[in-house]
């Protein structure tokens, strides 16, 4: 007769500790869901008031922002935010991907390690420091361009774009680098064996294979850019007029802290409304991100 181990234990299968832990996890999970729902409801209700007051179109598409005269059109700010973000992402994406390729594939190990540490450091610097440096160095540098174009010296959309590029580069670089590194080496090997040069193998096979990761990095960078307030506030000049590259612009994010202290009544409700618009932007970007991640996952299978 052989010995058979019984799989039945003397105790009940789920111990008390396990049950308590389960409850704690459930509560934590619920708490996060509840707070997101609460935030959403609160933003919609408080931001919705101004829209109910002025109408969606006059709020979103109005050209004039003049709280004193009870005019609350935020189109200039929406366009400024969108252009600043778009400009920043369009520049930071190719630059970031090239740097990521360099770090993941081309640079000697020590240099890459040093650069990575430096990039992580950049990601951790508070945005007000970027704002300070931008105001001290970048804005005056743009004065020359403005003078050449016959425009007054001031902060500008261009300055906001440049600052945002610097701020989102670390995100795009590190997410892209991870994606590029995780592409199986055998793809590159196969490409080389077909007579590709090293660069062809990287740019025609490895980078496209890392596409979903790179897009995720881009979406994260977009989210960071559109939500950034402090640094852009310090370099963009903050005039709520239609955006032009070398003229001052006011971004959605900047409008809220700038006007908060002295706003009241409808004006304050309009700031809530701006908050709601930003909230929607961020939600859309997050949904996009999830979509991209899901697609990427499906592709790998």
């Amino acid at each position, binding site marked *: 007769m052989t010995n058979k181990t019984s799989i039945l234990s003397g105790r009940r299968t789920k111990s008390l500790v396990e049950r308590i832990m389960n409850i704690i996890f459930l509560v934590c999970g619920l708490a996060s869901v509840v707070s997101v729902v609460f935030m959403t409801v609160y933003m919609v209700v408080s931001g919705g008031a101004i829209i109910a007051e002025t109408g969606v179109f006059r709020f979103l598409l109005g050209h004039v922002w003049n709280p004193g005269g009870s005019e609350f059109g935020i189109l200039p700010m929406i366009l400024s935010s969108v252009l600043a973000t778009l400009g920043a992402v369009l520049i930071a994406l190719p630059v970031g991907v090239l740097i990521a390729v360099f770090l993941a594939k081309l640079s000697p190990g020590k240099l890459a390690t040093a650069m990575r540490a430096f990039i992580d450091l950049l990601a951790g610097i508070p945005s007000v420091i970027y704002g300070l440096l931008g105001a001290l160095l970048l804005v005056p540098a743009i004065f020359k361009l403005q003078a050449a174009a016959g425009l007054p010296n001031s902060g500008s959309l261009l300055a906001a774009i440049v600052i945002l590029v610097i701020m989102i580069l670390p995100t795009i670089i590190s997410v892209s680098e991870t994606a590029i590194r995780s592409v199986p080496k*055998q793809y590159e*090997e*196969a*490409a080389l064996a*077909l*007579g590709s040069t090293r660069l062809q193998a990287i740019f025609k096979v490895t980078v496209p294979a890392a596409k979903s990761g790179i897009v995720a990095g881009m979406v994260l960078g977009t989210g960071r850019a559109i939500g950034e307030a402090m640094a852009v506030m310090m370099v963009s000049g903050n005039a709520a007029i239609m955006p032009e590259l070398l003229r001052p612009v006011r971004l959605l994010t900047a409008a809220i802290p700038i006007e908060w202290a002295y706003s009241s009544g409808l004006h304050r409700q309009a700031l809530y409304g701006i908050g709601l618009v930003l909230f929607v932007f961020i939600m859309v970007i997050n949904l996009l991100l999830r979509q991209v991640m899901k697609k990427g996952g499906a592709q790998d299978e």
Partner: protein
Amino acid sequence: MTPVKMHTRALNLFYGEVHALKGVDLDMPEQCVTALIGPSGCGKSTFLKTLNRMNDTIASVRISGEVVLDGEDIYAKNVDVTTLRKKAGMVFQSPNPFPMSIYDNIAYGPRIHGEKKRIVLDEIVEQSLRDAAIWDEVKDRLKKPALGLSGGQQQRLCIARSLATKPEVLLMDEPTSALDPISTSKIEELIDELKRDYSIVIVTHNMQQAARISDYTAFFLLGEVVEHNTTGDVFSNPKDRRTEDYITGRFG
């Protein structure tokens, strides 16, 4: 005796301190299948990779001796490695199609070598897939991801991808070791077809496979070629005791 397509003379290879190939002299005749057999770690893959310079990507590798393809030393200073690899294509042990469509996989090689015309590419894609005996299975799904194919199909796709650059030599490293018996026999038939146009060097752990498909067999042991002869002779009349022990399964 058939003319020699590729040969090596006094070929030595070191991975840092590890002496992986020790004075290998081997002739690989044209339009023939040369099988490389031997126990694990004896240097078969290493040898195969010296034939299209895939070892160049490993920093610690040092090589001496000669590898000659059509009378030209492939390790000479003025060799264009991309042309060499176009001429000597490689199929790997595990199928490794690119994460792109079937069409783009096959068109990859011709495209990087400068072919842009759609009609020409279409033609190359079809011909390569036909030559690799997979056209009928994929002709209706050329735009679908190659990674959706079965392992055996993927391997034939990889063979087709190599054929698309119009190589003269095909280097195959255990191309069927990851496949089921049916896919394996398909690929063996294919190799038999292909040797009319190509010179093939194949690494295999499967003695029956070597006996079935190859014209010449080289037995590697610890980085040396112990025996090299026609496959018939190696299997039915081995000269070296160690060869006999290996092919009869007494060691390795």
